């Protein structure tokens, strides 16, 4: 009985060399995918962590104080003095008084008085001081307690509590 060599030939597997080549190709492909994924992921992590630490570092360098609060009965106004005592420029974005936001048009504009714009921030360089002059439409009450919060763009806040004289 003659064996069908062609069938035998068609039923034989790939040779060892080819198998090895295929394995190499497959491995390299997987490796390329893995490296690409790892690079993307690690890069994102690195970028994210770098940004995180940079932002936290900048926020950490912010130091500012409310050094004085004056009440003027005649002008129905309150003057708040804020000084930057940190090592980085700060951007003041809001002042709250007893939980109410006072910003932008809520302040009177004088030549030497700072204002916080409705959008954006008021930049305060290091060792600079700003006076914010708040005018009360109904006047301020003697003996009343005022909780004043000043906030910056980096998320830091300083709170002080004063009593109207």
């Amino acid at each position, binding site marked *: 009985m003659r064996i069908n060599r062609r069938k035998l030939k068609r039923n034989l597997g790939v040779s060892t060399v080819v198998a090895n080549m295929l394995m190499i190709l497959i491995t390299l492909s997987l490796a390329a995918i893995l490296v690409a994924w790892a690079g993307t992921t690690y890069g994102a992590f690195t970028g994210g962590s*770098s940004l995180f630490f940079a932002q936290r570092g900048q926020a*950490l360098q912010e130091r500012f*104080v409310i050094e004085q609060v004056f009440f003027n009965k005649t002008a129905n106004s309150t003057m708040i003095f804020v000084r930057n005592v940190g090592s980085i420029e700060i951007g003041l974005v809001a002042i709250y008084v007893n939980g109410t936001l006072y910003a932008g048009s809520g302040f009177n504009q004088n030549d030497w008085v700072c204002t916080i714009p409705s959008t954006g921030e008021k930049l305060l360089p290091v060792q600079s*001081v700003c006076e914010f002059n708040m005018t009360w439409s109904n006047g301020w009450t003697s003996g009343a307690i005022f909780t004043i919060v000043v906030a910056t763009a980096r998320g830091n806040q300083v709170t002080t509590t004063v009593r109207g004289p």
Partner: protein
Amino acid sequence: MIGGIIFLVIFLAALVFMLALGQQYDVYQTTAAAMQQRQIDMYSENILAAYPGITKGAGAQVSCGAQQCNNYTLILNNLGINSKIVRIYINSKTVCDSCVIDPSSTPLPNRFLALDQMLNAGESSHYVVFWLPANVDLSGCSNSSECRVSIVTARGRVFSFAWPFPTVPAVTGAVNRGTGIYIGPLVITFQKALITYTTNTLTLPPIPIGKTNGYWILPKTSSGIIIYVKIQTDINVTHNVYLTPQTVFEIVQFNSPGAVDAFFTIAPITRTVCNNFKNATYNSDIDCTLPVYTGGGPHTNSTEPSNIVPYRACGATPLEYNTTCTGRYIIPKPTAPNQKGPPVIVAFAVSKASGDTNNLQKISWSLVSVTSFLGLSYVYDNGDGPYLYGVTLPFISLCIGDTANPPTACSM
């Protein structure tokens, strides 16, 4: 092998990522440590105002820019680390609504001298000169309308104090009695005018005695001398004190202890003489409204030893002494709490109790140093009823000068 290489590559990539992360964290920690140290420095500051707090510059106003300014000096003690003052706030309802004082190298209104900004660690009595407009006068600050002064440092600390410094009310039993000689209800307050004298030729008492000589001095005199001592009641004394004629002033020589001259008290001086004392320097606190002695003698009791009115004895018991006996030396009790009573001028001149002009005590020594004693005999009610007390006070040292009146030389 290829897998191993790939694994190694991934491992190294992770390692690089960890290193980068560690470096970023290290930078963050460095920043955190630096800010923490800044925070520590900030809270290590401690500035206090030193008495009297603020003083006004003597003299006229100073020129500051285009106007005149009042200049003041702020006195500070630094109990912490070195600090830098960047601003001073003064707030007062009446004087300075909102004075904001910034540093300046030259006198300008609402400025302080920039050179005074820095306080060294532990520095005391640091002066900060500042200028306010001429229409702002801090003398309007008072205990009832105080000025609040706030000092701002570069690290963000604010140190505040009220000025003038609030006075602490005196506590009963712990008052500041000043310097003097205290025994029982009476006190001789230490001052230049606690003693003086008159003679027949010097009828206006020199106050203080010694004048340009600079010390307590009595003249040698053969014609008599009247010596005056200021006596008052102590704080919280509840009743008047009545001197008896046994009250005496003695002088004893330093180098001859047995040599004693005793001067007993004479009748109280006239109101005219008292007013002369009152108008003299240091004696504005004398009470000349007390009753004047009119008990006897042909002469009025002026300042001349030749016109002595004796201080007559009164035989009443202590219980009746202040009601039965007239014309007594009254050392009155204080008229206000925590104050001594108004002082009284007590005169001494005679060599025996109740003596008169015939018993003038003379000083025969010259150019010697003497010590003195006060023998006080008085009726006093300390709350248990009136009683007769006798006390001896070591008094002052004096010099007996030459015969000149007033004396010009002394052995002291």
